[in-house]
């Protein structure tokens, strides 16, 4: 009952959900239902690209949940995304079976290449989809929980927290570059063949992944909306604005942060897991601090503390990125850098904030 009211009060969110639902139906339909060259045909490339953006959207929502509502500027959410991606990648790797270059039925190619004899213990179980799914959730959650357990109890906040989240993803970046870690070193995991028996190259599978991404984004959005609309959400924003005061009201701030941070990490992990089969590769650069900080700028551009703004930001910035890196390869970093500067100075509440600001002004005038 109250959830319905929640959505009713969230008009932009509703618009977004409707658009998502439409896309989830129409995009695969136009891709599969119309032949190449037809006016209504959407190419598989475009569909996969948009699918990728949707994963980024979910990732942005997860960052907005902790930054916009809890005041934790995480510069390490890319790590959770990557961990989810690796968990999925390991499943896809196991599905290759003996179709690898070396044809080894037991070991993935890179292990054969490294002259390994046995599958490392942490690879066991990834033959099963449900196990991989469990890991997609559990691994980012465990990292976020362990990290948050220490950080929040010791009341590390503000820029300190941001910097150590960055150090966390940086440490993981270094670790995953090592061949001995058993995750394929700097090549990462790739050459996937199929998922749940469906070949990854086929349009139908890709359409399926697209629908899955749209659904995950919608569900993730609804979960976050549920949290932010609850009393817990109001406690979160109270923590964001006046953390010490919340403690004197009797709330265990560290537990609340831990809960929300871990949940957000899970969302990021799911986004990563959906991303990997669509792009066909996962490698350590996903852990690079630049990646994580880019997510933050999507949220900043879209407007933090709104959730739908994060999705919009992810779509807009990534579309611009795809366009600019193709058209003017050198200009992209200039553009990204300028975006950081301009948005923080001139548009601190992002596009959506700017728009609601305008909207409000008009209302006041009326």
């Amino acid at each position, binding site marked *: 009952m109250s959830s319905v009211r929640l959505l009713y009060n969230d008009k932009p969110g509703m618009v977004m959900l409707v658009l998502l639902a439409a896309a989830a139906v129409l995009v695969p339909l136009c891709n599969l239902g119309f032949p190449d060259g037809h006016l209504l045909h959407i190419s598989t490339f475009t569909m996969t690209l948009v699918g990728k953006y949707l994963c980024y959207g979910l990732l942005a929502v997860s960052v907005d949940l902790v930054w916009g509502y809890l005041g934790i*500027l995480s510069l390490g959410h890319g790590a959770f995304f990557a961990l989810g991606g690796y968990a999925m990648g390991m499943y896809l790797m196991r599905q290759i079976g003996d179709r690898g270059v070396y044809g080894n039925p037991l070991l993935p190619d890179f292990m054969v290449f490294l002259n390994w004899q046995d599958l490392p213990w942490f690879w066991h179980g990834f033959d099963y989809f449900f196990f991989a799914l469990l890991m997609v959730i559990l691994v980012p959650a465990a990292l976020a929980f362990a*990290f948050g357990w*220490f*950080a929040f*109890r*010791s*009341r*590390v906040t*503000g*820029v*300190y927290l*941001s*910097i*150590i989240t*960055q*150090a*966390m993803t*940086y*440490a993981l970046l*270094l*670790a995953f*570059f*090592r061949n001995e870690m058993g995750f394929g070193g700097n090549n990462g995991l790739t050459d996937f063949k199929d998922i749940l028996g469906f070949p990854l190259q086929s349009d139908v599978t890709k359409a399926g992944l697209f629908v899955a991404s749209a659904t995950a984004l919608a569900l993730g959005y609804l979960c976050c909306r549920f949290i932010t609309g609850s009393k817990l959400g109001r406690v979160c924003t109270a923590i964001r604005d006046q953390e010490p005061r919340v403690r004197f009201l009797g709330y265990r701030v560290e537990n609340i942060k831990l809960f929300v941070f871990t949940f957000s990490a899970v969302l990021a992990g799911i986004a990563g897991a959906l991303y990997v089969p669509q792009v066909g590769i996962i490698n350590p650069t996903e852990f690079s*601090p630049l990646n994580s*900080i880019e997510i*933050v*700028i999507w949220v*900043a551009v879209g407007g933090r503390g709104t959730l739908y703004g994060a999705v919009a930001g992810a779509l807009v910035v990534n579309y611009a990125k795809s366009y600019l890196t193709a058209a003017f390869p*050198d200009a992209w*970093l*200039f553009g*990204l*850098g*300028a*975006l*950081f*500067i301009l*948005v*923080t*100075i001139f548009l*601190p509440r992002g596009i959506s904030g700017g728009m609601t600001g305008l909207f409000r002004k008009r209302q006041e005038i009326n």
Partner: protein
Amino acid sequence: MHSFSRDFALAALFWLLLMTQYCSGAEPNSQFLDGLVLLSAQSFTEKEKGIELIGASQDPLAARTLQSLLDGKLFYTSKDNILVYGESEGANYAISDFLSGESLGLVKKRNLEKITINNTLRSTLKTTIALINLQHPDDTVRLAAVNAVLSDINPELLEILAGCYQTEKNEQVRDALSVALAIGGLRQQDTAKRLEALQSVRGDVHPVIKNEIQALIDRETDAIVIKAAKSTLTAIEGKIAWFARLETLFFGLSLGSVLVLAAIGLAITFGVIGVINMAHGELIMLGAYTTYVLQQLMPDSIGLALALSVPAAFGVSGLAGILIERSVIRFLYGRPLETLLATFGISLVLQQTVRSIFSPLNRSVATPDWMSGSITINPILSLTSNRVTIFFFAMLVFGALFLLLKKSSLGLNVRAVAQNRAMARAMGIRAARVDALTFGLGSGIAGIAGVALSQLTNVGPNLGQAYIIDSFMVVVFGGVGNLWGTLLGGLSLGVANKFLEPWSGAVLAKIIILVFIILFIQKRPQGLFPQKGRAAE
């Protein structure tokens, strides 16, 4: 009998020829020429006599002759029996008259007759050459001579070396001689002498001595000597390990000093203005590129260019810093997280700018002579000069900065603004100006760090990125707003890193340090030296 007379006839002929060859040079030394003649003999005993004669001849050419013989480069021409020096060139030999040095062009191999030697001769040759060189006036030649005989010391040689040791004046040569004597001592027949020698080499870390003792243990039969040798070996190994640790400490301090240089500017801006400047690494990079450009401008005086780079880099990075502060950061005071994002944007722009101007490739910056090479402490420990220089440079910069902040009026203003912005402003301090200056100062020091870094690594657009997280770790570890903390934090992190490296590998060491700091901040969020009082809240 027959062969002897033939040899003799040939010898006489050679003698004559050699006489004519040698006439162009100084007074012929008959002993030397006699020796040369004997070298042409078939029999190795004759040759050995010849070598001895040459060795004793005191002729200036003697050492070179024997060395050429040892290297297998002495020949007679088959046709006219001239003694030549031959250098193989493909299938042919480029020959030159040995005595006059006059080039005789290329000849086929079959037109030459090599003066052959066997193993006994080889050893005699080595000893004889060493003997000649041991008398040489040049220190370096004598030193080389001692080191050359280390591997085959016989009792005869030992006596000569002992004699040399008595008269030797040069410190290094004496050291080398003492090592040689010790090795000789270890090879004595007399058990007591071996024990004595073992006693005398305790604590000598020369690798040759260590090997010799190891060899002694393997071949020795006397139990007492073995026991003594083993104990000496342990002592030596202990000492070597100690020096290895010293070396690690040196590398650690060196890394630490670089970290301090990189972090200290950040410590100032973060501690005083409370903003995290994510473009700090790029300001370091600008300093490094300034060094590179100055060197390109004055390629003939690299040392001067480097010296000029310090103020130039300070200026370039400092101005860039002030520009950043005035154009971006000042709009974001009180919003630390936004500052972090905006300065990150600046770092991207700076990187890309440098990439467009200088290409994305790494550039190498030359090291001036006085900074290259190394300072040898003992055979197993030598410190590279550039690292030593940078260490002291870092300390100098630290000291200067410390004085500046403690004693100057700028320092006073800076500390006032850091403690209470509103109050400082009320007292008439122009906070905006202080902010800009502080930011310029911190950035300028980043530029200086870049100069130092250019002497250690290649200069590239990503140079700064590699140091930014480390610098933060140092600042955070040391405690914000505390210069001493930064110094101690930087040095201890550098040392810890280097001590972990051999044990865990470089990457893992870095990860361990990062994890340690993550845990550390959580235990002590204010760092090693927390700021106390309400200002900290």
